[in-house]
């Protein structure tokens, strides 16, 4: 579907990492009102098919723009940089150390889950706050390099963003288990 050449243009936003979330959401509302298949529920099969495709495209665009790591990846995509993330993080020994440390702490947290709920809770909180801190730093790196126009160099912070967001997911999974203990 040729809705627009890129997601930023569809949402009438300047391409960039920092975006106006409120504007993104309000435009999304407009788009939903326009192309949701429910607006064509009494219509022909063709109208419904077109609406499903349009809405799926719009939802994909919204998902890409609203999630930081996906938006960063998409920006590099638009800049023609293939962000093949294999082996990227290994070029930064400091970050590699950090990853290993966190993995160990996560393993410790998992063990605590069955033994000491309060200790698990406090470890989880500290890991979560560290994760957020690091995420902010990496995002700032990405923005700096992106604004300098050094797109190939952006791949490294993007790879780190992938790690931190994956780590955040694992922390959430641990939080899930904590909730189940109640």
């Amino acid at each position, binding site marked *: 579907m040729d809705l627009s050449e890129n997601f930023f243009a569809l949402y009438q936003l300047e391409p960039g990492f920092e975006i106006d979330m409120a504007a993104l959401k309000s435009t999304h509302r*407009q*788009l*939903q009102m326009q*192309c949701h298949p429910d*607006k064509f529920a009494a219509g022909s099969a063709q*109208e419904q098919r*077109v609406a*499903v495709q349009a809405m799926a495209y719009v939802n994909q665009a919204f998902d890409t723009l609203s999630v930081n790591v996906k938006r960063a990846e998409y920006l590099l995509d638009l800049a023609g940089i293939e962000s093949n993330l294999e082996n990227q993080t290994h070029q930064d020994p400091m970050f590699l150390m950090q990853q290993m440390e966190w993995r160990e702490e996560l393993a410790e947290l998992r063990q605590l889950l069955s033994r000491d709920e309060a200790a698990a809770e406090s470890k989880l909180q500290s890991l979560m706050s560290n994760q957020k801190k690091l995420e902010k730093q990496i995002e700032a790196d990405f923005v700096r390099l992106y604004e300098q126009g050094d797109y190939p160099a952006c791949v490294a912070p993007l790879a780190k963003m992938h790690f931190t967001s994956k780590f955040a997911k694992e922390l959430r999974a641990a939080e899930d288990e904590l909730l189940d203990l109640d």
Partner: protein
Amino acid sequence: MLLQISEPGQSAKPHERKLAIGIDLGTSNSVVATVRSGEPVVLADEQDNSICPSLVHYTAEGGVVVGQAASEKLLSDPANTINSIKRLMGRGVEDSASLGQSLPYTFTEKEGSGVPYISTVAGEFSPIEISSEILKHLAALGERSLSSGSASELDGAVITVPAYFDEAQRQATKDAATLAGLKVLRLLNEPTAAAVAYGLDKQAEGLIAVYDLGGGTFDVSILRLSKGVFEVLSTGGDSALGGDDFDQAIVDWVLNESAHAKTLEPVEQRALLLKARDAKEQLAGSHSTTIEFNNQLFELNRETLAEVLQPLISRSIKSCRRALRDADISAEDVDNVVLVGGSTRTLAVREAVANLFGQEPLSDLDPDRVVALGAAIQADILVGNKPDSDMLLLDVIPLSLGIETMGGLVEQIISRNTAIPVAKAQEFTTFKDGQTAMAVHVLQGERDLVSACRSLARFELRGIPPMVAGAAKIRVVFQVDADGLLMVSAEELTSGVKTSVDIKPSYGLADDDISRMLQDSFSHAKDDMKARALREQQVEAERVLEALVPALEADGDLLSEQERQTIVQAMEALLQTRQSAESPRDIEAAIEVVAQCTDDFAARRMDRSIKSALAGQNLDDIDS
């Protein structure tokens, strides 16, 4: 020349009110409602029953009895009286075997289908066929009360499903509706329907929690409302927790108190379950009651009931916590709590919910009718009776979709709580030289292991051009529509060959099964089936033409003169065929021709409507 399309008798008059119903297809009870003079009302049968027990009784003569009339057979003929069929919808043979232990039915498996069939004196029936009997019954009730004497057809129905239903269960529900001859406007989540019934859409904005404890399923949904748009932020629940389990817990308590052997004959089991249910219902109004069993009287009071039910209720509260977490909000953020389902009449349930959310839940509307009322309101809007309504109910996919990879692992393709409709593409390649086919296994669930997820479908990609291993690039697109139903298409990118996708639903019915069942149900009246198929195609032809006439008027400038000519010719051919054709296939073919030459036009129109809507928004921004 196109004016004749809107002449009376050839298509619906633009302001004619359409007949639409909302159906709450419940585990224990089902309800049908409609909007009459702007107000949603529940429809009752001749005996003034508005709550229809979800019971189907098969007689030796091949007859089918549904609802209240079937309830008399529950005790006298349990093996031929099917109860709680919703629990088996979209389930496989293995699930049914484990669920079936407490059920008095005989299950059989039809070869290769994977779907459990229930043996009755009238033959073997799948859960989809049994459900469709309930839907037919409710649709007939709707038609009778709506048509006011003159024969009239329903234009569409909204059918509710638990928010927790996976793809196979939703597909099974839609198949049942198709089999019952209903046009499904939308499968709507039960909690969303309940929120709509309470008119919460009239508030400017807010967060709503819907706690729905029905006969057989528990759902909790967190909805966000803003400017008429309902958004499901998260859903959770338990597809095997409900009032039936409460009744069973009470039965277990009685058996425990009486030190009776745990195994009861089916008839005894049913009788005691009914007594347990009565006692539970009485305790909603009084403080204590008695249950008679084995010539002994057992006193049950509210405190004991609360203790007996505590493990079940706390399972539901845990699901609520998880749903709140998934929605990224805390219990205090919730503005309204809505209670749905007969089991929320139990005092201990209300207390637990009020305690969690720190507020009294809404319960003014009958918790057994509230879902059907909301479904009716939505059906009225979707069928087109309220063109100015700006209500929009947005949904998310309740469980992640993924595919099987090496080593029995699942790779997620679309994750839980993603807004639908959604489409995701995945690229595959071949691992052997000259490989021309590959198998794809689609699963739904949150776990990493194939064995822990629900198998939805297996399909084969065929016709891949022979190449060296790893050279083929097969792009598979998984598309989930607004009802949460999955469609898969595939293309080999290097050659552009569209590979055939042959989906075999693991627990559902293939299209062939559906048409066979349709044929079976019309086996004594072949003409009926043909007449119905013809009527369906005629209606679809009307929809196509009705949509195109104003479209050409409004956006005809998007077409070249030649394109316009082609479209007009195809439309005239369709109009001709619609009036004269005796075979539904001829009309279908003519519709296909129109669809093919208007696909681009439809896409261009969507593009334009989006751009003009956004342009309008910008003007508003400047004004404010």
